[in-house]
C-alpha cells in the first residue's frame, strides 16, 4: 500500500512517520507512537473517548486521517498531566469521584481542559452541554460535572 510521509508533534515531541492514507490519527497515536491515553470507544465520533487536541482544538481522532493531520501539534491526556504531576483537572476528578473504570477519563480530561480554557466560568448546564460529546458508562456523569465545576470554581476564587 502506498504510504505518505507525515510529521506530527505529539505532546511536544516531533515524530516523522510513513502512513497509509486510511490510518486514523487515533491508530497512529496509539499503535505507532504507543501513546495509549486516547481510547477507541465507538469509532464513529459519538463517545469522545478518542478526544485529542489538534492544534489546540478538541476533536474525535477516530474521524481524522493521520495524513490530514500532517504538521499538526497534538495533545493527548499524557500531555496534560501524569501521576507524578497531576493537572488540576485530573486532581479534581480523583478527589470528586469522577473516575470509575477510567476508560472515558482521558477523553473527558482533554475535553474538560479545552472547554474550561474557552469557558472559565461555566454554569452546570454549560458544562453538561460542553461535554455532550463524551460518554461515560460508569459514573452517571454527576461526579464528572462536579469535578469540572470544582476546577471552574477554583479558578474564580
Amino acid at each position, binding site marked *: 500500500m502506498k504510504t505518505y510521509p507525515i510529521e506530527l508533534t505529539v505532546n511536544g515531541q516531533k515524530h516523522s512517520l510513513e502512513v497509509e492514507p486510511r490510518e486514523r490519527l487515533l491508530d497512529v497515536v496509539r499503535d505507532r507512537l504507543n501513546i495509549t491515553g486516547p481510547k477507541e470507544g465507538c469509532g464513529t465520533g459519538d463517545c469522545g473517548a478518542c478526544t485529542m487536541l489538534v492544534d489546540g482544538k478538541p476533536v474525535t481522532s*477516530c474521524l481524522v*486521517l493521520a495524513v490530514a493531520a500532517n504538521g499538526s501539534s497534538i495533545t493527548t491526556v499524557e500531555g496534560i498531566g501524569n501521576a507524578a504531576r497531576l493537572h488540576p483537572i485530573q486532581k479534581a476528578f480523583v478527589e470528586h469521584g469522577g473516575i470509575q473504570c477510567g476508560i472515558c477519563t482521558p477523553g473527558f480530561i482533554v475535553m474538560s481542559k479545552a472547554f474550561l480554557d474557552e469557558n472559565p466560568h461555566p454554569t452546570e448546564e454549560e458544562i453538561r452541554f460542553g461535554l455532550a460529546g*463524551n460518554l461515560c458508562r460508569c459514573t452517571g456523569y454527576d461526579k464528572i460535572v462536579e469535578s469540572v465545576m470544582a476546577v471552574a470554581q477554583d479558578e474564580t476564587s
Partner: protein
Amino acid sequence: MKSFEYHEPNSLAAAVQLLAELGTSAKVLAGGTDLIIQMEQRLYTPQHIVNAMRIPELKGIRTTTDSIVIGAATSLREIETSNLLREKVPVLCESVSTIGSIQIRNLATLGGNLCNAAPSADTAPPLLVLDAQARIIGTQGERVLPLASFFKGPRQTALLPDELLTAIEIPDPPKGFQALYYKQSPRYAMDIAIVGVAVGVTRNNGTCEDVRISLGAVAPTPLRVPEAEAVLNGQAPIAERIQQAAQISRERSKPITDVRGSADYRRAMVETLVRRGLNALLLN
C-alpha cells in the same frame, strides 16, 4: 476501511483539475465526520480522496456590501462562535450549535453538512429561510445556485463530478428580520433531527413580510413551503392564519417512518413546530 489514494491540493484550480480527472472515483474530504464513518461502513469506497481542507479560498467568513459569504470549508465551531454571524444571522449559529458535539463541530464544515445532503441536515432549513445561495466551481467555471435548487434527494446534490461547493452566500437579511430553528430530537445533544423547522419573518406595523418557512428531515430534501408563507405574507399575523400556515406545512411534508419516529408523529410535529415558531416571532 478500504485503501485509497490521497490527494491534498492547495488551490481551487488544482482541486478542480483533480476532480475533473478523477470524476466519480473520487470523494471530497472536508471534516470527515460523515465521510470517514461512511467509508468505515463501506457505504462509499472511493478510490481517491481529495482533501479540501488545505485550500485557503474555501475558508473563512467575510462580508460584501450586501451579503455574508462563508467558505465551504469553514468549521461549524467557527460559525457557532463567530461574533459577526451571531449578530447578522443568529439563527444559523443556533442551528449549528445543535449539531454533534464541540469535538465534531471542530472538524465538521458547513460545506460538508450541505454536500452530505442528509434530509435532516441542520444547517439547511436556516439557510433556506435566509435565502442562501450556493457558490460552485468546476471546469466550466463558477456558478451560483439558490440553495433550494442544490438538494436533489437524500445524499444527492446538484454538484457535477468535477465541481466543488466553494461558499454559501447569504444576502443581508431585511431590517428587522428574525428567524428561529427548532430541532426535534429524542436527545438534547448528539442526535439527528426527527423534524427540523426554521421560520423567519419581518414584522412591519401590524403585518408580516418576508415570511419564510423551511422544513428538514421530513422529505427527501430540506424544503421551503411557499404555499404556507403566502398565507401570512403581507397579512396581519392572526392566530387563524398562523394555524393555516402550520397546517399547510404539515400537508407539504412527506416524512418516512424510521427508528427515530413515525411519519405520523413527524407530520404532527411539523404543524406544532411551525405554529410554535410563528407564534414566537409574531404573537408577542
